[in-house]
């Protein structure tokens, strides 16, 4: 509607370049030698090499990937286990203090992790969770539950009242309504938050780097942060490692992109 078609095409081209070009440079850099990056950072014709990938594919990387998997899966499962019933209770069971709880969730969601890490660092030792992957995973889950719950609400609210009323007339209590009716109908919402929580936990590094001390327990995200300074600045290694770190996101994304996009719009915009 605004301006002519040509302007729109130029604008679109700019947007695509703005996002595609940096990613492309990253991809290209991961196949260069470090010297090539230093001397010809923009050069797109170069003798490709697997030197960076060879350098980073070490047992340490495998360990880190395993740690990431453990932390991410634990955090995701815990979040789902807490958020799915909570959202149901808040939307379909009308406890007295629904408004208060939602308000608290909204406020908790806004607490910067850099802040919450400070008292947690004092609390986790008392709980025997310091220096452990479950400690990190549970902290991530606690930080994510408000977001997941609030995101699930619109999906529960979208379950048609008539269906629930009919079930209640047939004698179904809240538990049956939840299990047999709501859960299947909010499947999309659960998928969306599972993907978002998973991706978020996979990339999480603040709690990991603050609560873990053993290099053998660090997830991949910490390894990525350690790239700077540890290898000087071997940018080709860093880019290769970054691409590997992005693989779960890429895979999940390819599998769920459409549903994710529409789910996000539903959950956040409405």
């Amino acid at each position, binding site marked *: 509607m605004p301006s002519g078609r040509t302007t729109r095409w130029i604008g679109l081209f700019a947007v695509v370049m*703005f*996002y595609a070009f940096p990613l492309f440079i*990253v991809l290209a850099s991961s196949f260069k030698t470090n010297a090539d990056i230093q001397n010809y950072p923009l050069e797109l014709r170069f003798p490709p090499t697997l030197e960076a990938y060879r350098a980073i594919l070490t047992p340490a990387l495998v360990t880190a990937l395993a740690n990431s998997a453990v932390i991410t899966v634990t955090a995701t499962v815990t979040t789902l286990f807490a958020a799915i*019933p909570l959202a149901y209770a808040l939307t379909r069971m009308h406890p007295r203090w629904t408004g208060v709880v939602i308000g608290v969730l909204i406020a908790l969601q806004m607490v910067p992790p850099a802040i919450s890490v400070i008292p947690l660092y004092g609390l986790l030792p008392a709980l025997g969770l310091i220096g452990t992957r479950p400690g990190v995973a549970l902290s991530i889950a606690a930080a994510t*539950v408000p977001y997941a719950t609030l995101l699930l609400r619109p999906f529960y609210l979208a379950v048609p009242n008539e269906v629930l009323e009919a079930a209640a007339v047939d004698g179904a209590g809240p538990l049956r309504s939840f299990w047999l009716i709501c859960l299947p109908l909010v499947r999309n919402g659960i998928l969306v938050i599972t993907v978002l929580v998973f991706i978020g936990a996979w990339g999480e590094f603040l709690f990991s780097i603050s609560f873990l001390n053993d290099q053998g327990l660090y997830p991949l995200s910490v390894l990525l942060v350690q790239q700077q300074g540890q290898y000087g*600045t071997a940018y080709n290694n860093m880019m290769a490692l970054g691409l590997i770190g992005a693989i779960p996101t890429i895979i999940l994304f390819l599998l769920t992109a459409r549903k994710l996009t529409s789910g996000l719009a539903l959950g956040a915009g409405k």
Partner: protein
Amino acid sequence: MIRTKPTVTESKPASAPHRRGGGHWRGAAQQLVFMAPAAILLGVLSLYPIYLMVRMALSDVTAANLRGAWPFIGFSNLTQTLQDPTFRAVTLQTLVFLFGVLVFTLAVGFVWAMMLRLPTRINYVAQTLMVFVWALPPVVVGNVWSFLLSSSGPLNAALVAGHVVPSPIPFLSQPETSLLSIAAVTLWAGVPFAVLVIKSAILDIPVDVLEAARVDGAKPIQTVWHIILPSIRPTLYILGVLSVVGAFKGFDFIYVMTTGGPGASSSTIPFLAYRTAFKDYQFGTAGAMSVLAMLIVLVLATAYIVVVQREER
């Protein structure tokens, strides 16, 4: 966009026999079952830490006595922090940072949403690309831009080769541009979400209204100003609050790209609090900064709730 609240009737079906007395109690117990896992998790690892944070702020806590007793010292951490010139500078930086991210997220988000709102193939590609970037681990994005913005990196290479500047600009290691670089990357990674949400809102506007305007001879810019923008105002408000919250929570980019420096020139209040605790081991002071940061959180949460209530009018 008005969401109908679930009515009371659907929880009091006609033939349920045990509603009063016993039924009511049973209802509360069942509610507890559904809320229990979250209540325990959040109670222990989200709410109790906030109480600890306040206690920290009012005590003399360092790495030495973190696991021991915390001597109570009243408000002196707070007053000291409020008078600290670094803290004041960082507070100002934070406000500028939040404001900048807010304005650009909404402005750029709106313009791009308008550009991308038709369901064409290239629009789909552009959006997918953008959402993919949004979903990347922030650590990866931070590393990527550390490389792209480095003095020997591609951006400087392009600037120098194109004779825009005589020599490379150390974006991340000089105070003048460090915060700006963080803001730019925050926007790069965050705008896709805004575009999605705004686009959704724009497409919600009834086609007849836009048609009527066109038939009446309205110029595109008039349609935007008088119809589109007012229609999506609630979305823009909510998105605005969420963008500010996201920027305030931002940590990874700062840590990976500049560690808040040089000095504290690219730190926000939360990052400064983190650094005070984990680099300087001053947990009491960090607690005080955290409490002050929580005040900002409360303001943002209130703003959000007010806007949402107004929209669900």
